[in-house]
């Protein structure tokens, strides 16, 4: 592009100066001027669209790093915005050069079709049964029964362990329910209306949708199928059955996403009340927590089918959760059994203390550790319906909730289930009050983390003066700091500031939506088996539970550092501890929404048309939207240059810049780049109206050039060697390439193609009050020294540009830097920098092997630039 720009400029310039060119009649000149204006307007629109596309592509690339949550609506908006702007560029290009690039439309349509197909893809439900009994379920039926029930099917039917009788109301039933009475349409509409302001509208949208679902009638086919399944269950259990009604959403128990506690479960439900609770569970797909979670983990609403599991209620003497391995340490293969009196719900909800038994995998299943806690409360089935929290009573509270025999039996079950699934599991279980047997209620993959041990370099004694609290349960490892924000009521959720340390009394699932926004979590109660701990681990947020008196000890706004692994909370930010923390997890990677964006981006982002000189640089070879934009950008610049040539349009031809003396700078006025019409062959600086060009020039002329740097012997050898191969490089030999610079300007636009000494640079700038359309592009290549040194200079310049906010990439010895979207003043400052650098990096390639010199110039250049930006230099001396 660089060379072509220069060649084109030269051609056009020589044409413009041709003395014997016949003058055009004035009406023809007027018509030409109009055509030119129209083309130039299209060119401007095209550049604005190009800038917009590059911004959207940068957004997509940022999203693909996977650290920040994004929703399906981001994917749709980003791809729609790219499509429309690419199409805009094609239209503008057609206006600039009618009929020349028709193949672009063909390529556009083909690429768009592929993207549409990706965005329209919807999961088809393979099985249309509305209800499936548990005895028919297996784990490969996740898409019809949801993860929870499908996995439980394996435990019952393939592992033949004790599982209560039950059935699942399937994904097909969910679809039927939602499509009856236009429910799904209304849900979609409510989401669309909430739009990008979802965070603020979350509560309202959530309650509107839940209300819709709860007040809807259950379609008759579902009703009939459930009644039949329930009668079968009665026969199996020999009488009236109370039920546990639990969510079993598709995607809920997939690996790396737990949806822990996001959905509703209802225990001890009478059949007469069943459909009321069925709808409650269905509605919980749209609870505030669930919507927030789905968005932050990249699930699309339509990807989640709310299947509902119904199990015969197990009235438990004791219950809890087994981790078949240590969730906090991959190297620890002991089995962790959390247990309490009554229903396992108490452990899962994280609101009571529970016992912990650690069992080794040796042949004897040795119990290697036991922590028996004061279990003041238990949750039990209420006689009427539902559950109650009840005091355990003196003498029982401090007793172990399991016998050693039961502990070993549970450990044995744990090993069998883990072996079957070939991955660590998180298993919910209960000991039946009726028959004393152990029932498995749920099994799902367990997330494990690396345990971190502080190295010797971390001298913890140094931070002891700022220690606020020590002790507690490492519920999710890591170190983070932030300002304390205590949350006691639901309304506090709305006030919770991004990046604060969440401090709560109980580790309730209600707080789950805050975890993704928190730096760390501190809770006075709760254990690592609870939902909140699961969510914290999933999001990679450090969490420290069981911190006694945290609510009283910490004040809102206190800056604290939470080191979960060490069980410590410090006042202030402790930098060495923070550096030691685990890198952030890439949450979005692998989620359905992420995968779609990833696939869509393959039709947008890759750039295949790299070399404009190549024969392959053709519209037919555009394989992505980026290729199309690159092609159009390149060709549009050429078309703008060649306009004068094609039309013998001398009025538009270039003028030579007269800045005290005539200079080797040539200026082509595209539109309104001059203050007034210029008659002669020279244009003076004060006659130029181009805002970006003037800013560039100010930087260029502000500080005189010191002349070539003192060369060391090696630098000299290097240039002499290259000069023997390329005579154009020999100093003193007049070359047609030496110091020729071409500006193409309008009031708010300017391109420069310049050769100063032995390097080439191009600059393109659009700067106006429309900050969203503002951009700067700068390319730099070449030099007289050997490749290594040229490369050295390119990196040297890149470092400076990045320091001042440019995005810069280096490819071979090509530097490509851009910035867009800033206010006018900021952009003009950056143009001054480019002007300054264009002059002052002259011949700096010579000193690139010499570190002290490099350092000297880095200091000098940045000092000059800083003073230039501070406005301490007026234009002084010519270059």
């Amino acid at each position, binding site marked *: 592009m660089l060379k072509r720009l220069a060649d084109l400029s030269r051609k056009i310039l020589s044409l413009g100066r041709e003395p014997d060119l016949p003058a055009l009649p004035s009406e023809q000149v007027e018509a030409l001027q109009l055509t030119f*204006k129209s083309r130039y307007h299209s060119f401007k629109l095209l550049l604005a669209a190009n800038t917009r596309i590059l911004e959207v592509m940068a957004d997509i690339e940022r999203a693909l790093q996977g650290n920040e949550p994004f929703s399906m609506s981001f994917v*749709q908006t980003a791809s*729609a915005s790219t*499509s429309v702007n690419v199409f805009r560029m094609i239209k503008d290009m057609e206006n600039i050069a009618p009929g020349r690039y028709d193949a672009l439309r063909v390529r556009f349509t083909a690429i*768009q079709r592929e993207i549409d197909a990706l965005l329209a893809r919807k999961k088809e439900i393979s099985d249309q049964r509305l209800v499936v009994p548990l005895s028919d379920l297996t784990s490969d039926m996740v898409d019809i029964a949801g993860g929870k029930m499908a996995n439980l099917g394996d435990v019952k039917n393939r592992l033949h362990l004790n599982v209560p009788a039950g059935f699942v109301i399937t994904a097909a039933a969910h679809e039927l329910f939602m499509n009856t009475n236009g429910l799904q349409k209304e849900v979609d509409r409510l989401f669309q209306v909430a*739009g990008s302001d979802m965070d603020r509208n979350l509560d309202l949208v959530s309650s509107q949708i839940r209300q819709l679902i709860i007040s809807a009638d259950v379609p008759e086919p579902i009703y009939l199928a459930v009644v039949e399944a329930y009668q079968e269950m009665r026969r199996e259990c020999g009488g009236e059955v109370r039920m546990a009604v639990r969510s079993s959403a598709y995607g809920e128990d997939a690996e790396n996403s737990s949806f822990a506690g996001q959905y509703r479960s209802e225990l001890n439900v009478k059949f007469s009340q069943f459909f009321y609770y069925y709808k409650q569970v269905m509605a919980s797909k749209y609870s505030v927590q669930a919507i927030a979670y789905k968005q932050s983990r990249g699930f699309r609403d339509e990807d989640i089918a709310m299947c509902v599991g119904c199990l015969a209620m197990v009235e438990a003497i004791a219950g809890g959760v087994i981790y078949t391995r240590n969730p906090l340490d991959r190297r620890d293969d002991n089995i962790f059994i959390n247990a309490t009196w009554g229903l396992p719900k108490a452990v899962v909800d994280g609101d009571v203390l529970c016992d912990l038994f650690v069992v080794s995998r040796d042949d004897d299943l040795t119990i290697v550790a036991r922590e028996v806690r004061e279990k003041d409360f238990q949750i039990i089935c209420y006689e009427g319906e539902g559950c109650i929290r009840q005091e355990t009573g003196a003498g029982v509270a401090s007793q172990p909730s399991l016998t050693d025999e039961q502990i070993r039996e549970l450990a044995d079950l744990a090993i069998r289930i883990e072996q079957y699934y070939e991955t660590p599991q998180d298993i919910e279980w209960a000991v039946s009050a009726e028959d004393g047997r152990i029932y498995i209620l749920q099994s799902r993959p367990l997330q494990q983390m690396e345990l971190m041990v502080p190295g010797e370099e971390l001298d913890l004694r140094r931070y002891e003066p700022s220690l606020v609290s020590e002790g507690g349960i490492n519920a999710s490892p890591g170190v983070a700091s932030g300002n304390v924000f205590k949350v006691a009521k639901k309304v506090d959720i709305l006030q919770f500031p991004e990046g604060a340390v969440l401090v709560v009394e109980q580790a309730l699932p209600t707080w789950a939506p805050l975890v993704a926004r928190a730096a760390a979590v501190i809770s006075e109660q709760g254990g690592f088996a609870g939902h909140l701990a699961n969510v914290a681990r999933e999001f990679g947020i450090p969490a420290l539970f069981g911190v006694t008196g945290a609510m009283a000890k910490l004040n809102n706004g206190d800056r604290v550092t939470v080191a979960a692994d060490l069980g410590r909370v410090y006042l202030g930010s402790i930098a060495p501890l923070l550096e030691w923390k685990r890198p952030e997890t890439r949450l979005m990677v692998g989620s359905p929404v992420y995968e779609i964006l990833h696939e869509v981006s393959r039709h947008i982002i890759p750039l295949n048309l790299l070399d404009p000189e190549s024969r392959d640089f053709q519209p037919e070879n555009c394989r992505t939207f980026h290729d199309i934009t690159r092609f159009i950008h390149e060709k549009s610049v050429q078309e703008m240059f060649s306009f004068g040539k094609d039309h013998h349009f001398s009025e538009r031809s270039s003028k030579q810049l007269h800045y005290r003396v005539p200079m080797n700078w040539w200026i082509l006025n595209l*539109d309104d780049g001059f203050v007034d019409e210029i008659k002669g062959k020279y244009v003076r600086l004060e006659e130029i109206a181009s805002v970006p060009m003037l800013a560039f020039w100010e930087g260029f002329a502000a500080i005189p050039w010191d002349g070539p740097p003192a060369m060391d012997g090696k630098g000299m050898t290097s240039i002499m060697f290259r000069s023997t191969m390329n005579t154009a490089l020999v100093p003193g030999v007049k070359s047609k390439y030496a110091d020729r610079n071409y500006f193409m300007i309008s009031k708010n636009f300017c391109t420069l193609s310049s050769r100063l000494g032995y390097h080439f640079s191009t600059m393109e700038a659009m700067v106006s009050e429309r900050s969203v*359309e503002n951009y700067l592009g700068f390319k730099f290549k070449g030099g007289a020294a050997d490749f290594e040194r040229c490369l050295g200079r390119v990196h040297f310049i890149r470092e400076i540009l990045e320091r001042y906010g440019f995005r810069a990439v280096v490819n071979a010895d090509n530097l490509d830097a851009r910035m867009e979207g800033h206010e006018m003043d900021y952009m003009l400052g950056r143009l001054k920098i480019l002007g300054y650098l264009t002059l002052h990096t002259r011949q700096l390639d010579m000193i690139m092997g010499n570190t002290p010199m490099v350092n000297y110039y880095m200091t000098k250049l940045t000092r000059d630039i800083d003073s230039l930006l501070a406005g301490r230099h007026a234009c002084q001396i010519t270059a």
Partner: protein
Amino acid sequence: MEKPKKCKVLLVDDEDIFREATARQLAVRGFAVQTANCGEAALELVRNDPPEVVVLDQEMPGMHGSETFINIKRINPLVEVIMLTGNTSVDNAIHLMQQGTFDYLMKPINIDELLYKIEDAHTRKQLNEKKRPDNAA
């Protein structure tokens, strides 16, 4: 390029709050703004008191945005039309751009962006009028 003169804009949208708020913002920025809450009313205005630029919502009850657009162009081919739409109907947006809409903006809109598009559409209209003086409105 000559500065666009005070440009006459017609804003067509069935959402009252959006339409009135946007109209106010455009008026503050020096545009002469007319509004219509449906396609039929918009066509009436285009016939009797033609605007230079129309900002047209795609999703409207009654006469749909696309249909309204085609009718506007039939009445007055030089009026430039900017479509407003949600993010899920790209196909339609591109189809309409092929048919001659000037540009398309996604809701929720950024008012500055809308402003620039109106200015650009206005410039385009002026250029087209000069190119085809016989067709000028």
